[in-house]
């Protein structure tokens, strides 16, 4: 066996000036995170266009429009020239009528460049309103949406976490479930919570999805944390460890997508929670269920065996899916193109590729141009990706299937579907098989029917 570590082609998108990005900005990531706090009001201190990003974040957290409010200071030229603090103060006071438990004030590029001090405005007004005001400085230019998740979590933990909490035995804090490009990632979170319950652990805080303010206040009572993303959340886990001694579990292993990853993740968790036997039982039961369902429901993905594939995804889904493609579906990844780039994610992918003895082309922090170019050069038979790649692959002969698993997908999903765990495997197979057969559906009729 050759030293695969030497052979792995780890490319990072060159320092190009003209990007066609897959990710939104830090402001959006912070909005996603703030929107995960139940019943909150998110105030965009920004021109009105940034309000649209908060609206999209609202959808990403599956918020209910009868419960969550979005406001915007709608800054115009006057506020950029003379400052927007007065507009911010006025809007916070107006929001008194909304009766919300907390307001997150997010500052966008404009007000941060002109030097609006949102912290001081929020502090000044905190005595005049009956809700908490949490300012988050998260201008879009501070980084990608994943940086925004980290910025918001950092601010929230520093402002809301209380340090005098007793540790709760077997308690866990879940971090960054929303930094996951499964379009219905909340099902992944639900699977993790259900799994932890079966393993006897108690989730004291989720940062963030339908999170109450008291969860933030109690986060120091957690004994352990789990980061549910390979794209964001590590900084929050480090902060919790540093400040409150919260030990991180399942660090450095792929999230539980696919048979091996699910097994490895569960076993690791079982050991850490001192219930290895229960975890082993869950693995055995889960694997049996997957096999039986595949037999009973007409699973027919054998045709994918040894077909080349490109994986174009976030790190959270993309890294674990490499193993699913190779081990469970016998496919051959020739390209792994990740939307983000973080040191831990790069190391993790590198380890996975070495372990699987794979030598695909790897691109971090990819953009659409890179993806299109790579697909055009490599012509993989299949692509694990999103609706974007479905369109980007148009006209590229030889790419027969684009499996839409990653956000954005073309299909409406009413029911949240997890990718984590054993039902997650079946959900992935179902999507893949539907896309596979769509390829063969008749697109035209050879003659007209006679009735």
């Amino acid at each position, binding site marked *: 066996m050759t030293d695969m570590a030497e052979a792995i082609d780890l490319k990072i998108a060159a320092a190009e000036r*003209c990007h*066609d990005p897959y990710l939104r900005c830090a402001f959006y990531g912070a909005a996603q995170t703030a929107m995960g706090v139940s019943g909150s009001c998110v105030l965009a201190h920004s021109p*009105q*266009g940034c309000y649209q990003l908060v609206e*999209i974040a609202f959808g990403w957290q599956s918020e209910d429009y009868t419960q969550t*409010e979005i406001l915007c200071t709608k800054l*115009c030229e006057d506020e950029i020239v003379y400052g927007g603090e007065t507009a911010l103060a006025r809007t916070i006071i*107006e929001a008194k009528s*909304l009766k919300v438990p907390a307001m997150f004030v997010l500052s966008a590029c404009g007000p941060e460049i002109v030097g609006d001090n949102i912290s001081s405005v929020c502090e000044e007004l905190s005595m005049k309103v009956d809700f908490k005001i949490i300012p988050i400085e998260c201008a879009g230019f501070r980084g990608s949406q994943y940086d925004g998740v980290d910025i918001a979590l950092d601010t929230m933990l520093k402002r809301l976490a209380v340090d005098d909490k007793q540790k709760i035995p077997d308690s866990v804090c879940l971090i960054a479930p929303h930094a996951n490009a499964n379009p219905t990632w909340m099902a992944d979170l639900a699977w993790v919570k259900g799994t932890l319950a079966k393993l006897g652990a108690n989730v004291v805080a989720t940062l963030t999805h339908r999170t109450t303010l008291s969860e933030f206040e109690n986060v120091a009572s957690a004994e352990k944390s789990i980061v549910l993303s390979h794209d964001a959340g590590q900084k929050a886990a480090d902060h919790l460890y540093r400040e409150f001694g919260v030990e991180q579990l399942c660090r450095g292993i792929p999230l539980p997508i696919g048979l091996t990853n699910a097994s490895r993740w569960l076993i690791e968790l079982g050991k850490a929670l001192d219930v290895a036997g229960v975890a082993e039982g869950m693995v055995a039961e889960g694997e049996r269920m997957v096999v039986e369902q595949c037999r009973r429901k007409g699973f027919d993905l054998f045709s994918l065996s040894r077909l080349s594939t490109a994986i174009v995804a976030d790190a959270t889904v993309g890294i674990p899916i490499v193993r699913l493609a190779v081990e469970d579906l016998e496919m051959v990844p020739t390209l792994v193109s990740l939307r983000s780039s973080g040191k831990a994610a790069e190391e993790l992918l590198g380890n996975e590729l070495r372990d699987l003895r794979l030598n695909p082309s790897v691109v971090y922090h990819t953009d659409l141009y890179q993806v299109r170019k790579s697909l055009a050069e490599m012509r993989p038979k299949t692509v694990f990706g999103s609706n974007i790649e479905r*369109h980007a692959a148009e006209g590229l002969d030889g790419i027969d299937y684009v499996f839409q698993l990653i956000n954005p997908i073309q299909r409406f999903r009413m029911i949240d579907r997890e990718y984590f765990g054993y039902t997650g495997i079946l959900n992935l197979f179902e999507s893949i098989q539907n896309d596979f057969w769509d390829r063969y559906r008749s697109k035209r009729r050879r003659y007209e029917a006679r009735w």
Partner: protein
Amino acid sequence: MYKERIAFQGTLRQLLEKVERGEMIPKLQASHAPPCKFWTAFMVINGIRHTVPIIHGPTGCTYSVASAYKMGSCEYRGVPLEPTTCTSLGEANVIYGGERELLEAIREADVKYHPDLIVVLSSCCSGIIGDDVETIAREAKDTVKARVLAIRSEGFGGDFRSGYEDAFSAIMDLMDPPEKKMEDTINILGARVGPTYTEWAEDLDEIRRLVDAMGVKINAIIAGGCTLEQIRRAREVELNASWCYDWGQKIGQLMEERYGIPYSRTGQPYGLRATEEWIMGVAGPLGLERRAEELIRKETGQVMDEVQYLRQFFGGKTAIVEVTEYPGPIRALSLASMAEEFGAHPVVVNIHPYTIKERMPSIKFLLEQGQNPEVILTKGLFSLGTFRSSHETEEELKAIVAEYNDAIYLGNPRRYPDVPMVNLTTSTGYPHYGYQGIRNIATLAESAMRNSTRPRSKLFQQVLYG
């Protein structure tokens, strides 16, 4: 309850006067925000083929407009995926500026994508730090093959409308001096992305069908999927038209002033009268009145059953018109005009004073044309809280409807007053414009009448209003 909840009741002209005098504040509340100037400028540019937009800003603005408009066009308007790029401005650029990066990005885009046109759009970031996108675009244009255009589109620099107008105005710089006149040829103005959010592609198909039937050719639909070449030749046409005076107004007016190309000022072709006006608005300046009259006669003959039905449906009734889906006043006023044509007394409900201010020239035009319907604004229209859960205005609408013995409702199916409700959502897939539109609206009216006693779905009610 009814009177307590009314913020304004009068005519459209009276409302306009109040807005002009500052008695009704034309500003949306903090919970309601349309797109900014940058988003709308992008929408226009997205309607030109083989164009690479370079957004001189961070990735959030870029991915968001690409996701909303570029992908939307791929999914619903038959457009292939093309790039939406940016300079990914970061903190260092905010401190040191990003002009050099922009220049390099323009050159890079030319090599990477081989576009016909590169459009640089400034964002809040680049606008505030003072990067001069126009100068950089000028500097770049001699070193690239593509045409290069710059639009100052900082989000804080204007409301949504200014983005459309500045983009349309910039597009005019691409128009070459005419070498000849293209006979019986027109441009359709005012499209963005495809048509607009208040019309559907099928509405434009109906317009095209009617234009074709008169033997009139369309050079370009600006900017509804047109090419740079079509824009370059746009000054060779005999006439500019739009399916809606409002959308084409700015560029139509500018092309008339600068190049002397007449602009057909007509409203949206809802109903028989407005459709005839639209057709004659195109035919008249081209000297094709006889062909147009023949077309109108033939098409009208084919929809006479539907017209008769609509006269019976609307005759003597009060038509409550509310456009909540995209709360622009022009569509509401056009529908009111159609209701009046078929014999109803139209009452337009809840067109926000903000939209009156934003569309002032078009409102004035409609008043000059004789449209001056009754308007009612309720207090709920001005309340703070998400637009999607406008339960206050739902209750107020029901109260308004209850004041009339003979009301019918024209608008969005999210509403369900206790009267026949004509579902005029624009998310359809069939046209409301022109003669095809008359057929479709008659069908919708018939369904409204036949099912008027059925209750609102409990599910819909609870989902919408809690």
